[in-house]
């Protein structure tokens, strides 16, 4: 049966991904630290659950969500839907205002895939735990997801207009540096991390499909040169969003303190 075949394929490849990590962990534990792993049976059960969980997760994505997401990205970037006629329109075809649905879709897919991202969930859980609840897991995830939404929408705009990627990134860096000066100190490291965790299992394939679809269908864009870069946007904007989230929270609690006085 093809269902089971596919499941075992995915299980096997997840297992192969975990193998080097497990080898490094247990190698150092037994050869360098020379100490048994505490609660070994629980840890092994945890690894088994992680591998099994990721396999189910990837299986579901590949069967249902990825094909639909890619189909949507194709349909939305289809010249017929966008109302482009490369022969007749000429330069008017690259008028960025024609692609409003694409930006909206980019933002929506960026937000929703980030909320479902397992890596972000892991970091948010840990942050909530070590901050004693002052950094809420849900608040952090929503802030990161909003950052990704803005990032991918802006990244699509960049592909449509064909402006160079590094201008955006450099301006983004400058904004991050300015925000760092004014942001509450404890959140800085966490904010920087949240840029790296947004783009993995769920987000990358869907966002890549969107970028490639856009770059292929818009006249004058080269999918090789312009299709990349969306992921870079999705890694930069969450940093700003999380720092803004902390800054707003900081400002709000100071205002409350002022009022109660």
């Amino acid at each position, binding site marked *: 049966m093809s269902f089971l075949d596919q499941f075992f394929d995915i299980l096997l490849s997840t297992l192969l991904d975990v193998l080097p990590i497990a080898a490094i962990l247990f190698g150092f534990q037994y050869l360098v630290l020379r100490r048994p792993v505490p609660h070994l049976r629980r840890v092994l059960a945890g690894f088994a659950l992680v591998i099994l969980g990721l396999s189910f997760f990837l299986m579901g994505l590949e069967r249902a969500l990825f094909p639909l997401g890619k189909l949507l990205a194709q349909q939305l970037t289809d010249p017929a839907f966008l109302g482009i006629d490369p022969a007749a329109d000429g330069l008017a075809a690259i008028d960025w205002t024609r692609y409003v649905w694409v930006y909206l879709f980019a933002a929506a897919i960026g937000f929703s895939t980030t909320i479902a991202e397992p890596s972000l969930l892991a970091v948010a859980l840990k942050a909530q735990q070590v901050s004693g609840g002052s950094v809420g897991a849900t608040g952090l995830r929503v802030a990161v997801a909003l950052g990704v939404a803005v990032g991918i929408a802006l990244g699509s705009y960049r592909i449509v207009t064909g402006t160079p990627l590094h201008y955006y990134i450099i301006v983004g860096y400058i904004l991050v540096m300015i925000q760092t000066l004014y942001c509450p100190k404890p959140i800085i490291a966490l904010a920087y991390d949240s840029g*790296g965790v947004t783009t993995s299992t769920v987000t990358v394939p869907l966002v890549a499909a969107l970028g490639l679809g856009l770059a292929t269908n818009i006249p004058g864009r080269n999918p090789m040169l*312009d299709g990349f870069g969306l992921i870079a946007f999705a890694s930069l904007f969450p940093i700003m969003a999380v720092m803004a989230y902390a800054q707003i929270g900081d400002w709000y609690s100071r205002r409350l303190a002022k009022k109660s006085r």
Partner: protein
Amino acid sequence: MTKLLKNALKSLLDSGRDLLPIVLVIGVFELLVLRQPIPNLLELAFGVLLVMVGLSLFVQGLQLGLFPIGEGMAHSFASKGSILWLGLFAFALGFGTTVAEPALIAVADEAARVAAEGGMIERDEESMGTYADGLRLAVALSVGVAILLGVIRIIFGWPVQYLILGGYIGVVIMTAFAPEEIIGIAYDSGGVTTSTITVPLVTALGVGLSTSIAGRNPLTDGFGLIAFASLTPMIFVMGYGMLIQ
């Protein structure tokens, strides 16, 4: 037993809530914007169920296995007091988990095609393969260095923003000199390095270290490792592009 069942049900519902936005986005765009029927509705429902079950199993396993072993090892290394072994472990973890990363393999192959198209390398299987392997090695090395650097930062308590700032300046300078074809890929390679299994482990390592070293705060100092791992690949990949040119 009922408690276990209740917990399982609750985590399943949580995962359902996490997935709701994706389902809504697909539904709204397909039905209202594009006005097309959703193909294979049953298949979609089944897929969503699988993703829900998978996500809740993953979170359970995280709490049971990945978090405790990462933190436990950080504590053991801190009490052993050998910076050399800790550094070696940090580098091995970064390098070892990245070199086999499927997303990176995909990006490297794509990058080799771009490079061949742009005339940077010969357009044959062999030189494209060498190019892709070199790129993977560059990224894996950079992640190893990043985790090592991050661990050293936690030990000495350097503020994270200075290192990130330095990294940004590095990226901007490299951008000015790197061949144009590689810039987009270099920027993207920072995002694909950190996989779903590496992130929880590295986070647990950082938090565990900053908990066991006196004077470090797990919130302020424990995070930041992943940020380095997303920044250094950009610099290394652009450096690789310049080397090949």
